[in-house]
C-alpha cells in the first residue's frame, strides 16, 4: 500500500547536516514481527513512522558537541525518536516493524549494547561520503557480540551527496569489517532513495522474534526517561511472556515493584494499549520516581510470577570521569543542587556529591560515564537551568593502595592520602583505537606518545587508512585529547576507547603555593615525568593572571616539600592619583570604586588576592597541559 509517491514526499524534509566531526554510525535495530491481527494502525500512521525514522538518521553521526546541543535544545525530541513501530505491507502480508535508534557515542556503549540486545537485527548505516569510522567498527563489534543475529542489511546513506563514494565505502566495509557488501543497499534519506528496499530487506532478512508469549514475563529495558507529570517512562522490549495494563511488575535488578498504570506502543507518539506480547517494543508508566529504579538493562517481570533469571547484561552505572562543578555566582548553589537532582531523575549514571573549595566556594563533585556525558550535563545545566558554571579539569578515579592495606578510590587531589600513608597509586587505563588516513599517522602517534601512551599495534585497514592502537591512562584522555586528534588530522581521524583496567603509575600530587600558602583547588595529580612541565606552565600562567600585590608574591609548584617550579610576582610600586583638581573628586572616585569593585571578584589566598578568572584560566590550562 505504501506508494513510491509517499516516499517522494520525504524529500521535503530538511537536508541532513553535513558533518565534519563525524563520529560513528547509527544503527537502527529492528524486530519485525507479523502484524497482530487486531492491528490498529493504518497507513498515515505507517507514513509517520518513516518520518520518524528519518530524523533519527539525521541525528546519527553528529559531532559530540552538536549532539549535546541537540539534546539540550530539545531533550524530549531525542527521546521521542528512540523507538518507533511501523506497519508495513509486503506482498499483501502486513508486518509490524519496531525500530529502535541507539545512541552513537562510546560514553553510552552500555546503552547501545542494551538497545542491540533488544533486537533481532541491525541496520548498519554508513555515510557514503565519510566511510568507516572508529565508531562504526566499535558498534559493529558490539552488535556482533551482543546480538545473536548477524547484521544483514547495510545501508549506504547520503548517496545523493556530491562527495559520495559508495563503491569505495563498500570496499572499505568489506575490508575492515569483513561483511559482504555485494548486497548493500544504496540509499539517501533525504531523497527517499532506497527506502522501500531497506524495508523489504528488513522483512526478508531479519528473522522474526521467537514466540515466547507463554513464558513468565521478561522485558528488557533499553531506555527510560523522567516525565515530570507521569514519573519515569520505561521503554522496553518484551522478550518472554506478555504484559498487561494494571499488572504488578517487578524490576529484577533494582528490586522495586510498581503497578503498570499505562502500557503502550510508540507509534511513534505514545499510544496506550492493553497488552504487549513477546517480541513487541513498547513503553510503560508506573509512577516511578527515579530512573535509578528502572535502569537501562534491568529486566521487568511480574511481581506474582517472577522469571527465574533476569536477562543478561545488566551493569551498574560506573562513573569514569569526574569534575567539580561550581556556580560562578555563589547564590546559584541551591539552584545547581536542584538542577542536578532533576537531571539525576533522568540520568541514573550521573553521580554527585557536595564539594567545598576555598577558591570556588560551594559546588559539587560529579561523576560521569565519559567526556560526552560530562559535556551534555554541563550544557544542560547551563542552558536549561540558566546556570553559569565553572568546571574544574576533569579527573579520573585513582586507586590508592595504602600502607595499612586499605584501598581508597580517590578522584579529588585534595583527598589524596599523605605520601607517607600510601604505597602506590593506580590509575585507569584505556585502550584507544584511532582510525586515520595514512598521512596523519605520524602526528597521531606523536599524540599518543605525548600522552604517556603505550603503542600496541598499527594496521593498514585499507591502502590509505590505518588503525592505530594505544593503551594510555584515562587521565590523559579526559583533557583535550579528542580535540587534538581532530586538529592534528584535520578532522579526518576518528577514535574509540575502551576501559582496560587499573595499572600502577608513578603519580604525584602537584601542589601550588601562592605566597607560601597551598592553594587546594589548584592541586592536581600528575605523572612524575610531567610534573615539571605542568608545574612550570601553571606557575607562569598564574603569574600572568594574579594582579600584582603590594608585596612580592612567590608562586611555586611543589611536590611534597620540594619546589619544582617557581615564579615571583613583583610588588606594585606605585598606584596613586596625585591630582584632585579643583575639588572635582567624582572622576577619581569613580576610578577608585571601579578598583574596589575589581577587588570583590578576588578570592583571598592567605594575604594574596586571586581573581576567579585566574582559577578558571588555570583550570583551562590544566585541561590542555595535563
Amino acid at each position, binding site marked *: 500500500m505504501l506508494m513510491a509517491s509517499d516516499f517522494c514526499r520525504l524529500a521535503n524534509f530538511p537536508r541532513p547536516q553535513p558533518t565534519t566531526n563525524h563520529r560513528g554510525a547509527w544503527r537502527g535495530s529492528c524486530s519485525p514481527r507479523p502484524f497482530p491481527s487486531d492491528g490498529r494502525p493504518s497507513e498515515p500512521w505507517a507514513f509517520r513512522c518513516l518520518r520518524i525514522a528519518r530524523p533519527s538518521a539525521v541525528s546519527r553521526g553528529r559531532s559530540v558537541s552538536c549532539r549535546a546541543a541537540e539534546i539540550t535544545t530539545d531533550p524530549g525530541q531525542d527521546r521521542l525518536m528512540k523507538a518507533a513501530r511501523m506497519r508495513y505491507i509486503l506482498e499483501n502480508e502486513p508486518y509490524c516493524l519496531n525500530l529502535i535508534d541507539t545512541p552513537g557515542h562510546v560514553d553510552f556503549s552500555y546503552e547501545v549494547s542494551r538497545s542491540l540486545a533488544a533486537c533481532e537485527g541491525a541496520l548498519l548505516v554508513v555515510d557514503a561520503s565519510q566511510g568507516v569510522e572508529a565508531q562504526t567498527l566499535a558498534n559493529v563489534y558490539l552488535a556482533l557480540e551482543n546480538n545473536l543475529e548477524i547484521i544483514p542489511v547495510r545501508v549506504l546513506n547520503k548517496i545523493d551527496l556530491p562527495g559520495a563514494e559508495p563503491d569505495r565505502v563498500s570496499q572499505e566495509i568489506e575490508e575492515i569489517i569483513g561483511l559482504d557488501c555485494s548486497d548493500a543497499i544504496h540509499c539517501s534519506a533525504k531523497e527517499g532513495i532506497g527506502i522501500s528496499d531497506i524495508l523489504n530487506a528488513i522483512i526478508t532478512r531479519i528473522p522474526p522474534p521467537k514466540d515466547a508469549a507463554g513464558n513468565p514475563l521478561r522485558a528488557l529495558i533499553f531506555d527510560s526517561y523522567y516525565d515530570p507529570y507521569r514519573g519515569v517512562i520505561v521503554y522496553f522490549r518484551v522478550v518472554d511472556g506478555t504484559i498487561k495494563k494494571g499488572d504488578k511488575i517487578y524490576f529484577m535488578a533494582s528490586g522495586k515493584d510498581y503497578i503498570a498504570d499505562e502500557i503502550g506502543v510508540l507509534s511513534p507518539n505514545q499510544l496506550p494499549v492493553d497488552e504487549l506480547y513477546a517480541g513487541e517494543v513498547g513503553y510503560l508508566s508506573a509512577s516511578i520516581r527515579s530512573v535509578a529504579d528502572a535502569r537501562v538493562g534491568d529486566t521487568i517481570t511480574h511481581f506474582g510470577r517472577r522469571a527465574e533469571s533476569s536477562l543478561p547484561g545488566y551493569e551498574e552505572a560506573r562513573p569514569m570521569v569526574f569534575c567539580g562543578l561550581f556556580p560562578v555566582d555563589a547564590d546559584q548553589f541551591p539552584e545547581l543542587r536542584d538542577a542536578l537532582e532533576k537531571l539525576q531523575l533522568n540520568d541514573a549514571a550521573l553521580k554527585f556529591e557536595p564539594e567545598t573549595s576555598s577558591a570556588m566556594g560551594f559546588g559539587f563533585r560529579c561523576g560521569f560515564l565519559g567526556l560526552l556525558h560530562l559535556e551534555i550535563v554541563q550544557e544542560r545545566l547551563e542552558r536549561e537551568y540558566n546556570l553559569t558554571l565553572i568546571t574544574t579539569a576533569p579527573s579520573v578515579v585513582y586507586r590508592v593502595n595504602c600502607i595499612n592495606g586499605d584501598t581508597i578510590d580517590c578522584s579529588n587531589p585534595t583527598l589524596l592520602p599523605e605520601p607517607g600513608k600510601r604505597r602506590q597509586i593506580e590509575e585507569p587505563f584505556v585502550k584507544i583505537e584511532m582510525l586515520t588516513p595514512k598521512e596523519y599517522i605520524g602526528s597521531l602517534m606523536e599524540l599518543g606518545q605525548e600522552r604517556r601512551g603505550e603503542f600496541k599495534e598499527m594496521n593498514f585497514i585499507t591502502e590509505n587508512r590505518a588503525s592505530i592502537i594505544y593503551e594510555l591512562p584515562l587521565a590523559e584522555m579526559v583533557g583535550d585529547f579528542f580535540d587534538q586528534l581532530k586538529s592534528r588530522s584535520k578532522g579526518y581521524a576518528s577514535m574509540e576507547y575502551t576501559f582496560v583496567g587499573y595499572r600502577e603509575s608513578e603519580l604525584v600530587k602537584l601542589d601550588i603555593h601562592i605566597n607560601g600558602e597551598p592553594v587546594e583547588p589548584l592541586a592536581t595529580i600528575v605523572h612524575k615525568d610531567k610534573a615539571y612541565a605542568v608545574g612550570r606552565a601553571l606557575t607562569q600562567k598564574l603569574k600572568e593572571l594574579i594582579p600584582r600585590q*603590594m*608585596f612580592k608574591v612567590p608562586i611555586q609548584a611543589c611536590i611534597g616539600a620540594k619546589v619544582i617550579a617557581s615564579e615571583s610576582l613583583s610588588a*606594585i*610600586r*606605585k*598606584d*596613586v*592619583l*596625585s*591630582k*584632585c*583638581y*579643583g*575639588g*572635582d*573628586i*567624582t572622576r*577619581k*572616585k569613580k*576610578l*577608585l*570604586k571601579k*578598583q*574596589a569593585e*575589581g*577587588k*570583590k571578584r578576588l578570592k583571598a589566598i592567605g*594575604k594574596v588576592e586571586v581573581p576567579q578568572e585566574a582559577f578558571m584560566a588555570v583550570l583551562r590550562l590544566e585541561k590542555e597541559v595535563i
Partner: protein
Amino acid sequence: MLRSTLFPPMLFFHFPVLRNARILLPVHSFPNPPPRPPTVCKFSSSADIPPPTSAYVHLPFCRKRCHYCDFPIIALGSSSSPSPSHENDPRIANYIHLLLREIEATKPASHNQPPLETVFFGGGTPSLVPPTLVASVLDALRSKFGMWAAPEISIEMDPGTFDRGRLEELLELGVNRVSLGVQAFQEELLRACGRAHGLKEVGEAIEIVTGCNGLENWSMDLISSLPHQTPEMWEDSLSQAVDARPTHVSVYDLQVEQGTKFGQLYTPGEFPLPTETQSANFYKMASETLTTAGYSHYEISSYCKSGYECKHNLTYWQNRSFYGFGLGSASYINGVRFSRPRRLKEYIDWVQKLQDGMVDHDATRVGSKDMAMDVVMLSLRTARGLDLSSFGRSFGDCLALSLCKAFRPFVESGHVVAIDGDRKSLSFHDFEQQLNDDYEMGNKVAFMRLSDPDGFLLSNELISIAFGVISP
C-alpha cells in the same frame, strides 16, 4: 529617617555653637584661622552641612594646551610675547561677564551665609586674565557672599604670562597666594610637555614672585614622571625648587589621560615615560628632599612650610562644601556635588538657565555610603589621616572598626599608620592589641593615615580596599 537615626542628636548642636564662637572672634586674630572642628564630615543630610566658605573660580584661558592636560580650557592661540597681546581679547571679557552672571544667579547655600574664607582662581592660566577683570569677579563674590577680613585668595600663574606690575596689581586686589606653574627646570622637558614657556621665563617668574614684598605665600608646581625625565633631572628640579624657597610645593605625578596628546603618544610605564619603579622613586625622592628641606608632606601631592597649608585645598580634603564657578568647575553645596558643563557653549546655556531659575541640579545628593567613601578617600590623602572617632560617630563605630581590621595587614607591612590621640604612631603590636579589644578600639587608635611615602604611593590600592569595606 534612617540617616537621622545614625547620628546622636547632640551632633546637631555641636556646630552652630562653634560657628558662633568663630564669628565672635576678634578680627585681629587673623591670619590664624579660627579653630575648625576636627572632623571631616559628621553630616549626612544637607541640613547638617555648614554652608560653603570657599569658592573655586575657573579661568580657563591658556595660550595653548599642554600635552598632558585634560582640563576644560580655552586655548587663545600661541603667542611668544607675554600676556598683553591677550589683554583685550574679547573672549576673556565675555567669559568674565558670563562668570559674573553665574555668581549673580547663584543662591547662597543658606540664609546665614558666612563670609568666604578662601577663593581660588584656577585654570587654565588665570594669570592671563587682566587684573581688572579678576577684580570684578572678586567684587561680585564679595557682594554676593561677603568676604572674610583676611581671606586666602590664591591664583594660579604661569611663567611668561605676567610681569611685576601685573602681580602687584593682583596683590592690591587682595590676592595673597600665588601658585606658580613651573612644572620642570629642564628646557627639553618643558618643550616635551608642550608648555607655552621656556626655562628663561621660569627664572624670571621666580624672580618676580620672590622679589615682590607683598607676597609671602607662594607655591611651586612640579610634575614628576615626565617623558625622558631622568632621576638626575628630577633631583635638579627638586633642589632648584628648594632654592627658590616657596612656602608651598605641589608635586604631581604625571597622569597620562585619555584624549590628551600624551595619551596618544605614551603608555604609562613604557619608554619614554619612566618605569613604574622609577616613577615611584621620583615620588620618594620628592618626599625625602622636600621633607629634609623643612617642608611638611601634608597631603599626597602637597608640601608646605609650617602654617602654609593651602586652606582652600584643605576644604576639599576635609570634605567641606565649596562653591564652584565657571566652565567645568565642581561645587559641593548642601550635600550635592555638581560639575558644570565642560564645553563653553553648554556652559553658556547652563548659565542662562540658571538665571532663568530653570537649573535642576541633576547631580544626586551624596548618600551616606558615598559620604563615607568621600571622607575616607579625601582624608586618607592627608597626613592627618582619617579621624576614626568622628568617622565612627557619623557612620557607625562598627564601620570604623571594620576599616581598621581591613587595614591590619597594611599596618603590619608599614603602608598604614595607626595614630593615637596625641598624634603618636602606634606600633603594630599596640595596634593589634587594640584591634582585638573591640571596646577599647576608639580609646587609643584615634587616626589612621597612609605612611609617607610607601602608603601614599599605593593610596589607590588602600583606598579601594576601604571602599570595599564600606560598600561590600
